[in-house]
């Protein structure tokens, strides 16, 4: 992962076993959060891949994309060609055929429209069609290529995350926050939403019940209807975890979940993370609290200056001289 000439994370490979807890540690600026951002699609990695269960989550260049490009190109072509001569077409199709309060000859009007449409010569018909097709097709292609690996694609593949500096939806209630996290499992479309169709209402009720269960799981059910911004800091972290869990992810990435928590909250958090793992979700976390890291991790990866310097079980890491050096400097431990 490079930003201009600066290499932030280099040759880091993290393999995570399903159903385990993996920690990524390292001094400040080691590139831990950058690694998370590259994984979740916030940044486009300059090199390297993310495989979830052996697959690289991306928008493929599928037949649907091809169809989209063709349809957009055609639509813009026709739109542009009509737009540049809209008055001529209107005159030929409508005004020339309509006699006040007489029945309108629809077939004749349609025929006149098409004759005029294709009778514009190179500059009237074919050039606008060509430009429109190029613009529309190219635009659609560019949009596809730029959104191939956006966070929503990664999230849809079952990778959820929390953020180092909490990013909740502050004005939504706790339960709504969690329901937003559930979005990828919901199906209500525009029409269902607009008319509050029974299926939409059923889904909504079910989603809220699931959300309440999750809030209960992280211990926030009693404040379900307050706005997220009104929660104390430690609770906001738990809410973020609940929101990430709501999508039923295969992997959950926690970015410093224990930051700013007091010792009791930290112990609760450790219990919560173990419970998440035991429920079948793979956990990857960034953490500075050594007690948390050593206490719950199955495997630890250590980063320094954007490179991985060690990997192993908590026991191995604790005794690895390079890790001690990275964290505490070169002096002898006193």
């Amino acid at each position: 992962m490079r930003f201009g000439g600066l290499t932030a994370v280099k040759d880091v490979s993290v393999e995570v076993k399903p159903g385990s807890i993996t920690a990524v540690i390292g001094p400040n600026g080691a590139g831990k959060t950058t690694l998370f951002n590259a994984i979740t699609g916030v940044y486009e990695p300059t090199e390297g891949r993310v495989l979830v269960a052996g697959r690289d989550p991306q928008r493929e260049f599928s037949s649907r994309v091809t169809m989209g490009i063709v349809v957009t190109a055609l639509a813009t072509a026709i739109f542009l060609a009509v737009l540049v001569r809209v008055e001529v077409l209107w005159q030929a199709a409508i005004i020339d055929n309509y006699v006040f309060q007489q029945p309108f000859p629809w077939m004749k009007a349609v025929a006149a429209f098409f004759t005029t449409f294709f009778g514009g010569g190179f500059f009237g018909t074919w050039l606008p069609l060509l430009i429109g097709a190029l613009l529309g097709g190219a635009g659609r292609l560019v949009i596809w290529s730029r959104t191939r690996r956006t966070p929503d694609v990664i999230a849809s593949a079952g990778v959820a995350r929390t953020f180092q500096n909490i990013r909740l939806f502050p004005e939504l209630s706790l339960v709504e926050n969690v329901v937003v996290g559930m979005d990828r499992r919901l199906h209500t479309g525009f029409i269902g939403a607009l008319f509050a169709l029974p299926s939409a209402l059923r889904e909504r009720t079910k989603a809220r019940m699931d959300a309440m269960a999750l809030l209960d799981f992280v211990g926030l059910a009693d404040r379900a209807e307050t706005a997220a911004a009104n929660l104390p800091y430690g609770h906001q972290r738990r809410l973020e975890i609940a929101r990430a869990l709501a999508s039923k992810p295969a992997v959950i990435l926690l970015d410093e979940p224990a930051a700013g928590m007091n010792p009791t909250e930290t112990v609760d958090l450790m219990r919560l993370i173990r419970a998440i793992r035991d429920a079948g979700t793979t956990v990857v976390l960034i953490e500075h609290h050594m007690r948390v890291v050593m206490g719950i991790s199955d495997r630890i990866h250590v980063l320094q200056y954007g490179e991985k310097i060690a990997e192993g079980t908590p026991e191995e890491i604790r005794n690895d001289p390079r890790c001690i050096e990275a964290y505490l400097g070169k002096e002898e431990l006193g």
Partner: protein
Amino acid sequence: MAERRFSFFTPGQYAVLALLAATPFIDLAFPSIQLSGPMRTVVVYAILALGLNVVVGWTGLLNLGIAAFMAIGAYAFGILTAEIYPFQVGFWWALLLSGAIGAFAGWLLGAPTLRLRGDYLAIVTLGFGEIVQDGLKNLQTITKGTEGINPLPKPTIPFGAHIDAALSKVGVGSAATTDSAGTTATTALSATESVAGALPRWFDISSETPARWFYLYLILLAVVICLCRNLEFSRLGRQWFAVREDELAARCMAIEPDKAKLKAFAAGAALAAVAGALFASHLASTGEPANYDFQVSILALCIVIVGGIGSITGVVLGAIVMVGLSNVVLPALTQAMQRAGIGSTENVLSSPDNYKYLIFGLALVLMMRFRPDGIVHTRKAVKK
């Protein structure tokens, strides 16, 4: 968002609708002022502002060109109903089609531009507003330039004749009023007429007297409010809020902000277009393109901000206050003063009508100082 109770409206929404519904009674009590006609514009602007609220209040996109969609709706309605064109689909179909055309226009504008952030999108919508206005002015063959398309038919009430017949059978019905041309008028029940005075005429639904016309608009507003409320409490509404609050976090929750924004834009444009169609029907003409200029967009934005950004009740209340002031109270005051000989047409300062923007500006400044979230709050969060 609290759990949705299964009702059509919230108490606040009932209250503002009831407030509006009282207008024709004022006419009945004071026949000299006649508010129902001008009050229709309040309803039109309420629908326009509700459309803007979807985009600005719920999705957090600044749209400075909502008047363009109103214009598109008005002209679509004009072309579809005017006698000079062959379509003449009638009020209801034209209303629906205008909404659909507006949504399409919103989608068309939004698809390539909604990836722009913040201020850039505002500039694009601002430009779009000007382009549409100029386009309508110059496409003379289609839009009749500054003349506007006219005359447009008044709205018709579906099954109006049947309702009339049914009502007359049960004895509530009415005399054929002079302005109810084309309806199957029932026999005059002179006894009822004399007893209850003007009241029976009220129930003559099929004829478009100002009161009935106003109620028709009010019912449409009620439908719009109900649909907006459905959206607010739906998955889509939640996606909009999430995008507004934190786009990146929403993305990481597998929401595609571009799609959510596009839907908001299209929904807002559709409502604005419906407002435009109703406006054209109210004037019986599309009017000139300058009727849909930047000031209209700004007025709609002021309504949303003063009323309470994101709150349906607030937005309708904002429309009552702002448009009620500029289109109803101030003109009435001006007229009254001129009749009393206080104001003169030569002295611009003596006519209250001309203080409109001064009052708007003052209202905005005061609101920003004392109640920045608008008359009706929606925000639960403590402001940092």
